[in-house]
């Protein structure tokens, strides 16, 4: 089974350390939500796990192999990333964007083969993009664009799916649909799926495991019922939140002073 593991990974940009001594072990089948305040290091965690940012100390291994030993093409065949920012000035159609997911698998001359076409068609079907296939990507609504991005990542046919705020531009129904799809993919294909989420209740309701990041450190890691407790939530997100215990627990704003 696929495993993506970070061992005491410390990483940052220039002088600034954005992630400190992170230990995390991801295995196929679960949907892991990463939560934490703005600037906590969530995106840095995604970038380190994707091999985009090299840890200054510590290491990230995929099935026991250090990511530093793999080139970008090999990593891309195993790890797909759904980025937070995705825009272009050029008129790519939805089908063409989804097709970009096959970049690392194209033949020597860059031609798409039958396997590529099948993967693109399947990914578009899974996200219900058939009717939008020929539309330019910049003519889509935020939700449609998010679905196209997710389809691009699925077309990559990787074993690991890392998503940086995949539900940021979605309405509640689409947020729920997206996470339900991720959960199903994780279970059915034994994919490693980790998503940065801002909605604590969405994470609580749909993720099988929650990782809490604050000030560059991993402060909690476990099932929602254990991680989302009053003490941890208040110390990380501030005192104005209340946790309603349960399975799953819910987090509400405290009303009044």
């Amino acid at each position: 089974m696929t495993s993506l593991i970070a061992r005491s990974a410390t990483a940052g940009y220039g002088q600034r350390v954005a992630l400190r001594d992170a230990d995390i072990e991801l295995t196929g089948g679960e949907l892991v939500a990463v939560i934490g305040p703005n600037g906590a290091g969530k995106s840095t965690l995604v970038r380190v796990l994707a091999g985009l940012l090299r840890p200054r100390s510590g290491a990230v291994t995929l099935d026991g192999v250090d990511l530093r030993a793999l080139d970008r093409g090999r990593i891309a065949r195993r790890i797909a990333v759904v980025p937070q920012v995705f825009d272009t000035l050029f008129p790519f159609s939805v089908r063409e964007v989804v097709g970009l997911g096959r970049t690392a698998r194209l033949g020597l001359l860059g031609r798409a083969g039958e396997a590529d076409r099948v993967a693109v068609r399947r990914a578009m079907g899974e996200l219900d993009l058939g009717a939008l296939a020929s539309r330019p990507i910049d003519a889509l609504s935020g939700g449609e664009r998010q679905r196209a991005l997710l389809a691009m990542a699925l077309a990559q046919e990787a074993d690991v799916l890392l998503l940086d705020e995949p539900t940021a531009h979605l309405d509640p129904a689409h947020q729920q649909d997206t996470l339900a799809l991720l959960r199903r993919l994780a279970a059915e294909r034994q994919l490693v799926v980790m998503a940065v989420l801002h909605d604590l209740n969405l994470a609580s309701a749909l993720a099988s495991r929650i990782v809490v990041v604050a000030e560059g450190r991993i402060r909690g890691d476990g099932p929602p019922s254990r991680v989302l407790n009053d003490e941890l939530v208040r110390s990380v997100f501030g005192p104005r939140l209340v946790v309603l215990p349960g399975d799953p627990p819910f987090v509400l704003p405290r009303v009044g002073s």
Partner: protein
Amino acid sequence: MRVTLVFGVLLVVLAASVVVGVLIGAVAIAPGEIFGALFGNGDATTIAIVRDLRLPRVIGAALVGGALAVAGTLLQGLLRNPLADPYVTGTSAGASLGAVATIALGVTTPFILPLGAFAGAIVAVSLTWRLAALGGRTTVLSVLLGGVVLTSFAGALLTFLIVASDRVVPRLRAVIGWLLGGVSVLDSAELIVAAVVIGAGALLAIGLAPRLDAFAFGEETAATLGVDVDRTATVVLVTTAVLTAAAVALGGVVGFVGLVVPHALRPFVGAPHRGLVPAAFLAGAATLVLADVGARSVLAPSELPVGVITGAVGGPFFLAVLIREQRRMRV
């Protein structure tokens, strides 16, 4: 299907422009005589005009236009910038500085001029890449500002070289004419070498197509899609410099072809570079052949450098695109 149609149209237009380019010239020759002369029939003067003057010039213009359009497509894709091309980024200016430097230094080794042009182009285009990446994200305007700086810097050095070098002065008229963009003096050996170099550059550009597509969404996304960002950028920059240097060595500095052609083609062939690059080559070739016909006809029997025509048409086009892009993305 539609793309096949576009390629058919482009091939027909290119063929037609080549025919027009050979038919039209300072000396009026009947079409029948021209086609005879192409195969060596008719009087010696007509054969000389057609085979030694018009045909090389038309082929030269086609090569220059194709090379610039492909180089522009590569730069636009790499920099994620619909306003980039060898001219506005200062790559052409760097190439012309390198070329004039070889004349000024009096180096006479064969093909030293294109090599000098390549050296200037690779320095300029690498600087463009560095400047564009300053501050993290490549923005449309930083590329243009970098181009302005590079062009005026190269221009200053060029003027210095022209004034300071007594080797340039005797050839001043030729150098100035060449700097303005003209494809008039071409010998066949030069043309064959240029055709091989430009053809290889264009094929390499087609091979880079899938990676350029991934670049359209940013370097980080390109990396997660499996593209080795640094290596790809290096190959794209070198290819761009080769194409620009070959074009400048053949025809001097010709502005805006590289900018206008890919931009105008995207609505028809789409954004993916697999179709865009070859379409740009064909359309760029046809465009410059026709522009050269214009350069020969506007003030006939005097000839204008072809750069005057592309500048006069391309400048306003560039402004229109700039205004539209500014509205669209508030650069």
